């Protein structure tokens, strides 16, 4: 079996009295897209800093690409690309100069660097404006350039902290495709933090959920959905009164009942049947036109986990 790209064991980091990361143990297989999910302040960025060897753990250890984060941070940083919390772009410089600088930092040969800059900027639709100072660009354009930067030297491991923040839906979808292609074509491992559950669901083969520095769950999106999300049923119709919602919430099989965009949404416990509930809705004066049932989304799982941990 191939060596995992990242292996953390009991990784803990405290800042004064705050425990930012608490006993984190994860393994990220090489060549996978790993989603690290959590609310603000959960410890996602701290984890990336620890894995890059930028800060030392208070206790525990981690190996990245076979190197110890405590003693071989430089080796890790030489082989990885990272888009951290902020874009890290030099806004007085042009897009081309920003990429050229980081290409030179990565010791890329000039001809190869020139070609790579052209390829990336053309692909992202930024080539025509490559000579402009980045400060004049829109947030979305800057974000695209910020994403191009860690991919420039084709690293074996890429850390991306909220990469699609600030991108329009089309650009975000394109980026997701690019990242999936990068992982498939180059065998690169992608460690991605995001708030966007749909993004994690589409892109990641493995996700971990973290809250207040503690790992809550880890597994494939499908695995997590089946474990925690329950069954989600959407009912289109009329007459969904507050009294009916209250009655539904009292049923043993119903975890949640609410009206969303005019539709009645029921989150049912695993194995629960829908038919008795439909009868109940009709008895209570509701009119049912369409019923759709499916597995709860990753977002439902995430929200359930956050709720459980409160």
């Amino acid at each position, binding site marked *: 079996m191939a060596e995992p790209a990242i292996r953390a064991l009991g990784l803990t980091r405290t800042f004064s009295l705050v425990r930012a990361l608490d006993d984190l143990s994860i393994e990220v297989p090489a060549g996978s897209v790993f989603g690290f999910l959590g609310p603000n302040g959960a410890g996602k960025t701290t984890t990336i800093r620890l894995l*890059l060897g*930028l800060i030392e753990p208070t206790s525990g250890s981690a190996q990245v690409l076979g190197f110890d984060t405590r003693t071989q941070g*430089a080796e890790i*940083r*030489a082989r990885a690309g*990272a888009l*951290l*919390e*902020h*874009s*890290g*772009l*030099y*806004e*007085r*410089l042009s897009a081309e*100069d920003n990429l050229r*600088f*980081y290409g*030179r*930092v*990565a*010791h890329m040969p000039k001809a190869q660097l020139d070609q790579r800059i052209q390829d990336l900027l053309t692909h992202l639709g930024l080539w025509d404006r490559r000579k402009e*100072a980045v400060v004049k660009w829109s947030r979305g354009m800057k974000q695209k350039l910020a994403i191009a*930067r860690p991919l420039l030297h084709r690293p074996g491991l890429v850390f991306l902290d909220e990469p699609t923040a600030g991108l329009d839906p089309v650009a975000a979808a394109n980026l997701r495709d690019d990242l999936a292609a990068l992982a498939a074509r180059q065998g690169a491992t992608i460690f991605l933090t995001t708030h966007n559950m749909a993004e994690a669901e589409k892109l990641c083969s493995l996700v971990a959920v973290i809250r207040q520095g503690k790992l809550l769950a880890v597994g494939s999106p499908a695995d997590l959905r089946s474990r925690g999300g329950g069954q989600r049923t959407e009912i289109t119709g009329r007459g969904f009164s507050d009294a009916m919602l209250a009655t539904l919430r009292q049923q043993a099989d119903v975890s949640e009942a609410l009206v969303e965009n005019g539709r009645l949404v029921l989150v049912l416990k695993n194995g629960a049947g829908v038919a008795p509930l439909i009868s109940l809705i009709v008895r209570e004066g509701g009119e049912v036109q369409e019923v759709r049932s499916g597995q709860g989304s990753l977002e439902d799982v995430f929200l359930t986990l956050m709720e459980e941990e409160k």
Partner: protein
Amino acid sequence: MTADFATVLWKEWKEIVMERSAGSTGSLRPLILIAVFGIFFPLRMGPERFFSAAGLLAPTFFSAIVITAVIADSFAGERERHTLETLLASRLSDRSILFGKIAACMAYGWLISISCILAGAITVNIMNWHGRILIFHDAASWLLLLLGPPLLGGVIATAGVLVSLHATTVRQAQQTFGRRVRGSVDWSDFWKQHAAHGLEGMVRADPPYLVPG
């Protein structure tokens, strides 16, 4: 290490040039300095005074002061604009980042010094043209010309980088560094010894000095 140092130097130099040419008040500072120490002072000093070690003191010292305007930005600016962490997350060693930043600021100060002195030499030659080019004629002048700007600039750049390294914002770095520079130089003495001397030269009409040969 050398390649990384050169890469940081390249980036820093580009940033300084882009900032100075962005139309802010900072872009005028070197031009004012060149106008004062490269044209106005030499014009009043005359060739004898200008082509001496004493004449080199003012442009050397004041152009080193120009470094303070850019040095505060080195680390504090990167921290303020959230680029420092990305830089540290790259393969660059801390040493190459530090020395690259110091070297870029030194080079900037040295360029301003040389520009002032060159502009001064041209001004003095034009105003005192007698068929021969006037240049510095003693060893002390040449020594000061060659070593003064890099040495003084180096000291200021190193001190400034260290201050900037510990400051959270550019403004804090500028204030702290300004206080330290003011504290280390006795300005009243400086004016008495050098500026007053320079003023004396400005009002005195020196005969043109011709380099033998």
